[in-house]
């Protein structure tokens, strides 16, 4: 007879305690910069360098972000750009992936390989030629210059195709037997089934676009179409720092991308799992 027997309940409690013990320090490590950013944004200027926590809260920096900078308009622009790119990629990638997984045609694998190969070329290597193309079309300083070059991505096609491959081929055959054409099959069977992957793709693409800096800076000139990341850098100057304003701007711009994480968390994790089963 053993001295101490652990019931299943106890075991669960112990393991979750252990998990907490491991995760909590990591959480603190990751979240601390965010909290510090927030504190820096509300600390009064004269306490900025001398105190870790403010004696009084000062939200004037936030007021300034909304009243004196272009950030509100730029956040709207970021939404337009990142939102359009996300929608476009969800459409194009799910359609292209459909062709690469359900349809049989000559050279299918070759074309797919070529598309994958484009992932190996770093974006920076083509940035000048892309700029010349876009400027040659007179697209500079417009939303479309930021949106259309990103309308499709090899990464997205790959992600969606891997997901489709987990579906039984019989589905397609059965649908065809019942007289369902490819469009209808894609829209009413494949897309609903692939929702988790599509959601993951959407969240991933949105975040990526939201954080774009170099390309939007290159192709835009006026504040009318500029995105929030450029607005942030505009708050910085090596010789005239306004830490409070900068940090308040960062917090404001962070909110949308953080909320994407909060709301899309389930989708993101589902998407990762979907890829993991048959990767």
């Amino acid at each position, binding site marked *: 007879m053993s001295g101490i027997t652990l019931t299943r309940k106890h075991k669960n409690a112990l393991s979750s305690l252990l998990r907490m013990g491991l995760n909590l320090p990591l959480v603190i490590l990751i979240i601390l910069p965010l909290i510090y950013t927030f504190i820096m944004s509300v600390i009064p*200027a004269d306490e900025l360098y001398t105190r870790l926590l403010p004696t009084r809260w000062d939200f004037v920096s936030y007021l300034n972000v909304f009243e004196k900078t272009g950030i509100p308009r730029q956040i709207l622009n970021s939404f337009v750009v990142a939102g359009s790119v996300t929608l476009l990629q969800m459409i194009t990638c799910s359609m292209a992936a459909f062709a690469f997984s359900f349809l049989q045609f000559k050279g299918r694998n070759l074309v797919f390989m070529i598309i994958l190969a484009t992932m190996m070329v770093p974006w920076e290597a083509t940035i000048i030629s892309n700029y010349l193309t876009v400027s040659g079309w007179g697209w500079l300083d417009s939303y479309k210059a930021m949106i259309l070059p990103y309308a499709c991505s090899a990464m997205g096609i790959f992600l969606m195709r891997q997901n489709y491959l987990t579906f039984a081929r019989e589905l397609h055959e059965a649908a065809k037997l019942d007289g369902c054409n490819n469009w209808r099959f894609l829209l009413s069977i494949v897309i609903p089934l692939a929702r988790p992957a599509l959601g993951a793709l959407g969240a991933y693409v949105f975040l990526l676009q939201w954080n774009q800096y170099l390309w939007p800076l290159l192709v835009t000139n*006026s504040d009318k179409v500029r995105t929030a990341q450029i607005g942030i850098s505009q708050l910085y*100057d090596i010789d005239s720092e306004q830490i409070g304003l900068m940090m308040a701007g960062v917090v404001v711009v962070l909110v949308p991308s953080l909320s994407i994480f909060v709301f899309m968390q389930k989708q993101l994790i589902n998407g990762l799992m979907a890829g993991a089963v048959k990767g």
Partner: protein
Amino acid sequence: MKKLVALLLVLLLAASGLTAFAEGDKINVVFWYSLGGTNADVIKEMVGEFNASQDKIFVDAQYQGEYDDAINKLKATSMGEALPFDIVQSYEIGSRFIIDSKKMVPVQTYIDKTGFDTSVIEPNLLAYYTIDGIINSVPFNCSTPLMYYNKTLFDEAGITEVPTTVDGILEIAPKLATFNADGTLDRAGFTFSNYGWFFEQWTGKMGRQYVNNGNGRESYATAVAFDENGAALDLFNMWKKISESKYTTYMERGGTGQSRAAFVAGKTAIFLASTANLAGVLANVGDSFEVGTAYFPYVNADDKGGVSTGGGTLWMVDSGDEARMDASWEFIQYMINPENQAVWNARTGYFPINMKAHDTEVFKENITKFPQFQTALDQLHDSGPEYVGSLLSVFPEVRQYVEDVTEEVFLKGLSPEEAVTKLTNLANDAIEMYNLTNY
């Protein structure tokens, strides 16, 4: 799905509806600037006032990222047909690159055309941008390095003579430093920022040249000069001396922001930074202690050199459109007129590049409020045009190398001799590569 497509179409339509706006039949001048924060607010206000002051020209001021970003954008756009701007603000070390791009018109052309009197411009600032005898661009936001010290601490320690050399600083550092109970430094006597700009400034302070061919001014530089004239060795020896002193701290690379933060918080007694920091430092320090300013220190006691300008300058694009170029020059003249330069100086801490600004009320009021600024002006006037500073196409890269190697001297114990060899090789390779592809 239909909803998605509809939404997308709406977004795209909205996008195409928003086109760049032009102001009636005025001449449109596009001005690219690279200042952020409060300095950008001042620029925008000045541009707004210019636009309101007359009805022929409309200046569209567009922020283009930091100087490095703007230079990258300039590289990209200069491969296209016409540059999408008329005036660009760039940093002093971008000058050779911009000249090599062959897209600019020297402002000398317009100075001659309109008979603009250049004698009102600070000669030591103008000298940097005078290349091959002609003025290429107009100095605009100019600064020099300055030494900031905590005067209250100096008084408490009984220090009456402010050091003029780095050795002098190291000598008084023990009197200013304090230690924690566990023996770590609580307040440093002196904080060193690893900022490539200081390497250039100190080379000038020693009266020596940074690159060959007359500091890159007689013709383009083909190699660095700081190895042969010993400037680099002297500096790395000084770095080593600073790193060996236990009364000093090494803070950061690529800027002076952290040293400034330490100084404001009373964690260091002396730090070096651009004159443009003065207003910010005074505002942050408030009443907690008295701030003193002194000349940027010499490396050796018998040095005879001076400081040169850092900061930015305004370039005019050779657009071929006479009306727009005339309008651009008109705008530049406005930006450097005495009244605007006085306001610019008071609000940003950059030098008033127009000496007539000294007679304005705004300037007089500012100098009474911040007497520390007089040191910056005196230092500028005491320096000579012969220490004007160098021109180098790959300056931004070389500055990075200087900071890399300095870091190794401070943190990894690289010997000064090895540091000189390493830096020289890195810099000369970059120069050779650029020259092979561009000349």
